[in-house]
């Protein structure tokens, strides 16, 4: 199945990736080729087959609700692009105005 340029633009937005307009056609072409390859799965009848999300029979793994040491604040924030006090500094979420950061 092939994707339209509009679909690529929409999915890129969902994925929070700003693609330059000049890249869209190439991305569309490459993704369509991959999807064409993937379409061979439709040759298989999978009616009644249970989906397998995980190779192991995974179950919830519980632990006791006990306090254990966690990362000190300074270490947890050492890779933050913008630290403000003991927090991650982020652009304003609720605003119509572009903000500086």
């Amino acid at each position: 199945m092939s994707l339209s340029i509009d679909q690529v633009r929409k999915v890129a937005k969902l994925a929070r990736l700003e693609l330059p307009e000049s890249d869209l056609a190439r991305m569309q072409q490459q993704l369509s080729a991959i999807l064409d390859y993937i379409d061979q799965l439709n040759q298989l009848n999978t009616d009644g087959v249970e989906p397998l999300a995980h190779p192991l029979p995974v179950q919830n793994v519980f632990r006791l609700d006990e306090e254990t040491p966690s990362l000190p604040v300074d270490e947890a924030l050492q890779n933050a692009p913008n630290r403000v006090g003991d927090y991650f500094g982020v652009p304003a979420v609720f605003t119509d105005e572009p903000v500086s950061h």
Partner: protein
Amino acid sequence: MSLIEKTASELLALQAEGKASAVEIADAFLAAYSARESKLQSFMRAPDAVAVRKQAAEIDAKRKRGEKLGKLAGVPVAVKDVLCTKGIRTTCSSKILENFVPPYDAHVVERLKAEDAILFGKTNMDEFAMGSSTENSAYKSSRNPWDTERIPGGSSGGSAAAVAGCQAPVSLGTDTGGSIRQPAALCGIVGMKPTYGRVSRYGLIAFASSLDQIGPFAHDVRDCALMLEVIAGHDKRDSTSVNEPVPAYTRTVNDPVKELKIGVPKEFFGKGLDAEVATAVQQALKEYEKLGATLVPISLPHSPYALAAYYIVAPAEASSNLARFDGMHYGPRTKEKGDLIETYSKSRAEGFGKEVQRRIILGTYVLSSGYKDAYYVKALKVRRLVKKDFDDAFATCDVVMGPTTPSAAFKIGEKSDDPLALYLSDVYTVSCNLAGLPGVSIPCGFTKSGLPIGLQLLGAPFEEEKLLRIARMYESASDWHTKRPKV
């Protein structure tokens, strides 16, 4: 044979016999790193010479005092740059983690340190482990030590090149769809992907969480067994790590498996397989027959669909895992002004390379409303069928064998413009990840032009012990693993 061409087990023996010190070994590998790195480009981060020498001197001193030493005492181990190393920059060969310094060690790095291994630099890889050649690294392309015009494979290409090129005797990589076995095959060394859950993924920067597994590269199966013995085992910080005892793999690795039954799937010898690779693999199977094994023709009818299913499941999981790289918690944030969504979208577009962007978009698409059932759920159903094929095979066979890769190493740049062509180099390796099986690639010959060829062995879940013994049987009867390239 010089020190750098030795296996880890030989280096341990030399130290125990007083014929080489940890400092001499460290110096030999530091010299090999310096002399060869401009040709091989295996490393993202050079081994810290001061720290390496200091640690080696401490090991020598401990030995002198008669103190107990770890299983990897004085053995340099190179580590793929997807594994967190406390205080040492860990980039995943991505610009988005250019300055990321982990505040903790991955479980496997803790295990190496606990056994007195010497952490020996961080190796280059395809960005976020997405690729089969290391050409997707945001920084450099690693080279195949057998022919530096060619790729070493990927995504753990730097870890494979470092061992094959004798810059380190052993290394760690990760395997999501073949990223250990494929580069091991192309570089003429041993590489193992353990059973899903055998090794803790704590501190492994996630690509596809239901497929990722950490494993070793080594010159031979014995060293591979040694490395697995060190890194395997339960860790409560990874809820998918399995609480099963870790056998002493090194103790049994030399014991041949009697009445060995080898499943040979016809699907692994079809269209697309290079004739020289096919011949070498058939020769290896004949060798197993000489050793008393029985070859059982089998079919894995759904394996031709595994690659298509993989390229849905892996990008889907990646699109979710890589959502964390948003310019807020880590990584450079775009300098351009904008609202929150623009800041996310610009930071991610600036930080991720093209292949990573492609897979995030593909993964987002196959999970998106209206397409999820047609793609993602369909792939999960095929995944069950792929796994069932193997369950059936292991009901009658001890091991499944075939080629690791459809061809030997290709030239740098040959496939970099065609993502689908590159994906096809994983065609024999991905089903093992979908089914969660252990798999190992061992050298089984060379092409006429001198490029290594790998034999792939797949085992039933948690049967690494048997798998290593089977691999060692062929290795003991051949000398491919003793060859070293002229770099």
